[in-house]
């Protein structure tokens, strides 16, 4: 390989209590797409943030075109030809598309102290064309669908390409996690088109994608690069194994532990409708069952899940829990009836970040830990310790702030919270979004544990594969209505195409 466009040598970075990067070296050649994989907490995001100037390394150096450079800020990174698409979306909904694309770099459009909007819009339209996004650059991003915002974000990073002379490097931190397949295809086509002018670093939890788009793959574990390999010669299974450092379970989705559902109906929905979201939805949920709901974004399944958990109110229809008619006006009423929701946005809705692990766990069942108006901290801690043990939650102590845990462990805390509250129905909305393979498997184990104890689970899976693998039965939704009901017994799982047919 000739002189790499971007290289780091021996970079280390520590945060209080964690060595995030340990003597990492890494190089990207001209026009190359480099995949970067590893479990959450392996150091991928830290590495990218160092390249982008958000963090400063404790030691080691960064080289651009073979010259050592200092990257003290995102702005400096940009001027050195490095741009980043952040994992947490960094598109500001209150600004227009054009303003987002050129945020912090408005000076090229300024005349006499004022921004020339027409020139900025023209330049933005140019960038949007590259990602085949046909929208008005003056539109506010709040009005864009989630995936379109992601494309704007990518356009923002790619705009570097036309701003900077010479070769550029674009860092993509999980750009595909919110994209549907055809959007992913489009992104990949764009990446391939741009390879003569740009190099890419690509992070994704979807290993198939990484192998599909990358030339080489770096595998990270515990802050170190454990392997560098050619994408052509690697398989998903190899990558899994390298990431977790152990042999993958033979059965990823624990199908062998799938129990046949009992005939007892724990939740029954009949003719549920909510204007603009879904209509006439009826189904039964049995004890010990995993009921998967498949559907694209906008199919109404998210709204349905929220109605079942009392976050939204249905306009019509009835809901029975264990035979009794219920009507939830608020989430706490649903929780009282034994229905819990594990939301997709766990940082926003599932956890109170500045509370400790123990406090979060007992949040939904707090009255049980109160006597004479005071919280019994010893009892709370005892229960928390018990569940930390049972769910193998990696936390220094029950008193640790939950916000400082990794995504997978946070998700386990949310699950523990509902188990402690004694729910009979648990609705899991994308329970494995953004968590790594090892933690995913733990979550799958937990789901099987729960159903074995008779809990019923409604699952809105992260991928179709996940829904098929975990569910006993699958409801398919399209445009707010149920379009198919499929059985998925172990060994007799439906194929993806069977379900896709009813989804779109």
């Amino acid at each position, binding site marked *: 390989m000739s002189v790499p466009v971007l290289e780091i040598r021996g970079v280390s970075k520590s945060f209080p209590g964690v060595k995030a990067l340990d003597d990492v070296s890494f190089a990207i050649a001209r026009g190359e797409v480099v995949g970067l994989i590893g479990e959450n907490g392996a150091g991928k995001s830290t590495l990218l943030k160092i390249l*982008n100037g*958000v963090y400063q390394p404790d030691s080691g150096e960064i080289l651009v075109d073979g010259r050592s450079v200092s990257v003290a*800020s*995102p*702005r400096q990174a*940009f001027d050195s030809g490095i741009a*980043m698409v*952040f994992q947490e979306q*960094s*598109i*500001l*909904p*209150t*600004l227009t598309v054009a*303003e987002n694309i050129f*945020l*912090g*770099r*408005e*000076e090229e459009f*300024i005349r006499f*102290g*004022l*921004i020339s*909007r027409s020139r900025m819009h023209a330049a933005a339209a140019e960038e949007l064309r590259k990602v*085949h*996004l*046909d*929208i008005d650059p003056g539109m506010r991003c*709040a*009005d*864009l*669908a989630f*995936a*379109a915002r992601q*494309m704007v974000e990518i356009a923002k990073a790619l705009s570097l390409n036309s701003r900077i002379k010479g070769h550029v490097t674009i860092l993509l931190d999980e750009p595909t996690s919110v994209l*549907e397949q*055809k*959007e992913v295809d*489009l992104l990949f086509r764009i990446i391939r088109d741009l390879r003569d002018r740009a190099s890419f670093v690509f992070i994704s939890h979807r290993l198939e994608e990484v192998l599909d788009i990358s030339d080489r793959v770096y595998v990270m574990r515990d802050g170190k690069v454990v392997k560098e390999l050619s994408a052509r010669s690697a398989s998903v299974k190899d990558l899994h194994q390298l990431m977790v450092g152990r042999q993958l379970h033979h059965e990823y989705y624990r199908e062998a532990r799938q129990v046949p559902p009992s005939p007892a109906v724990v939740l029954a929905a009949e003719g549920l409708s909510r204007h*603009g979201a879904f209509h006439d939805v009826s189904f039964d949920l049995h004890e010990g069952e995993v009921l998967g709901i498949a559907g694209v974004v*906008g199919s109404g399944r998210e709204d349905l899940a929220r109605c079942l958990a009392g*976050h939204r109110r249905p306009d019509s229809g009835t809901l029975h829990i264990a035979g009794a008619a219920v009507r939830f006006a608020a989430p706490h009423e649903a929780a009282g009836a034994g229905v819990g929701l594990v939301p997709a946005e766990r940082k*926003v*809705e599932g956890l109170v970040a500045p509370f400790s692990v123990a406090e979060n766990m007992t949040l939904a069942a707090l009255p049980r830990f109160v006597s004479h108006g005071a919280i019994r901290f010893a009892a709370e801690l005892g229960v928390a310790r018990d569940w930390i043990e049972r769910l193998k939650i990696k936390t220094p102590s029950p008193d640790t702030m939950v916000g400082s845990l990794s995504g997978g462990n946070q998700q386990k805390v949310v699950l523990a919270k509902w188990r402690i509250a004694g729910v009979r129905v648990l609705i899991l909305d994308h329970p494995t979004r953004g968590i790594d393979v090892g933690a995913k498997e733990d979550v799958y184990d937990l789901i099987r544990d729960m159903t074995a104890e008779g809990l019923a689970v409604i699952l809105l899976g992260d991928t179709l594969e996940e829904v098929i693998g975990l569910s006993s039965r699958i409801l398919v939704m399209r445009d707010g209505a149920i379009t198919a009901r499929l059985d998925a017994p172990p060994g007799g799982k439906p194929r993806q195409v069977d379900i896709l047919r009813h989804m779109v």
Partner: protein
Amino acid sequence: MAAIAVERGQMLGHWRRWAPVAVLLGLCLVVGLINPSFFSFGNAVRMLNTAAIPLVVCMGATFVILMGSIDLSVEGTIALCAVAASMLVTNDLTGVTIGLWSVPAAILLGGALGLLNGLVHVKLRIPSFMATLGIGFAGIGIATAILGGVMVRIADTDFRNWLSLGRLFGIPAAVWIAGIAVLAAWVIQERTRIGRWIYAIGTDEQTARNSGIPVERTRILIFGVAGLFYGLAGALSAAQIGRGHALIAQDRLFTAITAVVVGGTALSGGVGSVLNSVIGVFIVIVLANGMVLMGIEPYVQKGVQGILIIAAVALALDRSRLDVVK
């Protein structure tokens, strides 16, 4: 190629942006039906005149609130600038007379106090409400100490005419000046980098930082810009009542924040606009004017005011997407 779904169903969202205007029009209609003299030219001029100073104040306050901060120094800054302006024109206390130059002097003094707000807030990492509350108290304190409880009477007719009493096309000078201030604020908001950065910082400070925006510097600067507007409001206040004293800005803060919020600018930052605040100011002014015109019992007025303000905010804020309201 129509690659992906780009827009989300937003009819209600678009409607909401116009809610404050609808509230204002509805209010005008109700008041005008009960007392038709509401629509007279004379009353329009009087309301504009009453709105002039709140408008100028709100231009500054809006920027700070858009940024997700709050500025409680409004009253102190205005008071000190008003006292300074009245001591720099012909008056009964000092011999200094710089005439209309007192206006830029007051504006710059306001800007300096604003920068001080920003510096204390950003450099000492003190929450903006504490920093500005402190500076605001200091402002009133200094004004009190300078005057020792007396008032400065302004004898400079030029100053009063150019800033308040004089009329052009039948509209008082203060209204023209407020109009210019609104225009300036709108240009700052829409057409300058600082204006865009206010929104970026107010929406998500981390993202703003990641995009290379000098967040600290921008924050300090915005407090300074807000101070410029308060300084102008100080000069206008002194000209309006022909005196300067430490309590001249009493209740301005509450009116300003109410107007900004009623106009549809969120206290959480990022959402709103100076034009929203213009509407908000007029809602508050029309409401106060209308209460008197309609002859509503004084005992009932405060209740009606409170209910209408809550209703206006409820209409303007899209709460459906807020699962958590703080």
